[in-house]
């Protein structure tokens, strides 16, 4: 009986703890939006964060995108040529990149490259009392530190996803057309005939935008909410990467089921 009571108490405690955290995150998001004005009235703050999350992620995004495109080209050709339709390689590479792999893989890389860095930065600023010092200097840390990092991530993410897809298509072209020798004209024309701007490319951009909001919010929240010790910050970084990955994949499923239903 006592054991059962203990289990129920632990369960209830776990649930209330999580609900409380969720509520805190929602309130944090609201505050973040309220205090976003400064981010856009002082573009220098925003530029610095786009540099940190966008420009510094360029190398990993470009290299990964190229390799994913190369692999798609090889695997796709291998399968398609069995059915004698190797010209459809362009469609396969472009659709899988634009619809799924571009937004999802770029967001996963972005979470581990830029998201973790943002969490670490904010967490360390909290651990060394920099946020409290800022608050005592009558400067709101959410407006000055958190909001620019959030918007920097939100702006960088769709651009990085587009770059990933573009480089991936180029990788598929390299393998398919340059190395294997699929006809160049049919590679591009079949691709263009089947990839629709509105249903495929726009939806991909919308996805990457939503992922950008999710990853940036998780990263700044975990940093701001971290326990201000070395161990606390390192756990917050881990949580950023894990939670972001789960959020990206779950959101991807939800968005895909809305976007491509019945098409």
């Amino acid at each position, binding site marked *: 009986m006592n054991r059962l009571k203990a289990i129920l108490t632990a369960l209830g405690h776990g649930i209330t703890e999580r609900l409380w955290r969720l509520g805190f995150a929602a309130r944090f998001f609201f505050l973040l939006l309220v205090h976003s004005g400064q981010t856009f009235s002082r573009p220098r703050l925003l*530029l*610095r964060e*786009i*540099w940190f999350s*966008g*420009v510094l992620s*360029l190398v990993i995004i470009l290299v990964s995108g190229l390799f994913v495109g190369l692999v798609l080209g090889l695997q796709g050709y291998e399968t398609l040529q069995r059915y004698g*339709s190797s010209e459809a390689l362009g469609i396969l590479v*472009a659709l899988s990149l*634009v619809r799924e792999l571009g937004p999802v893989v770029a967001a996963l890389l972005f979470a581990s490259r830029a998201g973790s860095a943002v969490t670490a930065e904010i967490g360390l600023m909290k651990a060394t009392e920099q946020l409290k010092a800022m608050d005592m200097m009558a400067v709101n840390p959410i407006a000055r530190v958190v909001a620019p990092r959030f918007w920097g991530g939100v702006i*960088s993410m*769709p*651009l*990085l996803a*587009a*770059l990933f*897809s*573009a*480089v991936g*298509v180029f990788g598929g072209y390299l393998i398919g057309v340059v190395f294997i020798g699929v006809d160049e004209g049919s590679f*591009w024309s079949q*691709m*263009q*005939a*089947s*990839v*629709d*701007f*509105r*249903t*495929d*490319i726009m939806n*991909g*951009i919308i996805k990457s935008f939503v992922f950008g909001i999710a990853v940036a919010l998780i990263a700044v929240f975990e940093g701001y909410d971290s326990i201000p010790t070395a161990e606390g910050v390192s756990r917050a970084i881990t949580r950023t990467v894990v939670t972001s990955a789960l959020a990206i994949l779950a959101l991807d499923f939800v968005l895909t089921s809305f976007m491509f239903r019945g*098409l």
Partner: protein
Amino acid sequence: MNRTVLDFWVGLFVAIGIASLLFLALKVGNLGSFSPSQTYVLKAAFDNIGGLKVRGAVKSAGVVVGRVSSIEFDPKTYEAVVSMEIDTHYRFPRDSSLSILTSGLLGEQYIGVDAGIDDQQNLDGSQLVTRTNSAVVLEKLISQFLFDKAAEPPAPKP
């Protein structure tokens, strides 16, 4: 970090990001290939549209002239009514016929327009086009073939 260096890199990043969006839209997607500015609507009735989809192509002599804008079912005639947006540059005679065709053996389906010979009047949206050929349904084709085979007299033995 020097200010101008930072500005340069952020500017470069945003520029190549937008360039790759344009690449996706124009080179990978179909935004550049067919985007008619002005269109008129044609409606046609089909017995069976097979796998035709909204935004499918409308082609004449292999050239894209329009897109399917909606597909409805008419409960009175039990036919499918397909609306198409056709570029105003292209006009077809009244006795043109529309058929649902497939690109390649397993490709997607589109509407093909075979121009007629009536040079007095052109098709416009005022009436339903009824000179149509339905999609070829593979199952029907196969069963037809089997029936014909069965109906044939057995080949005389040598």
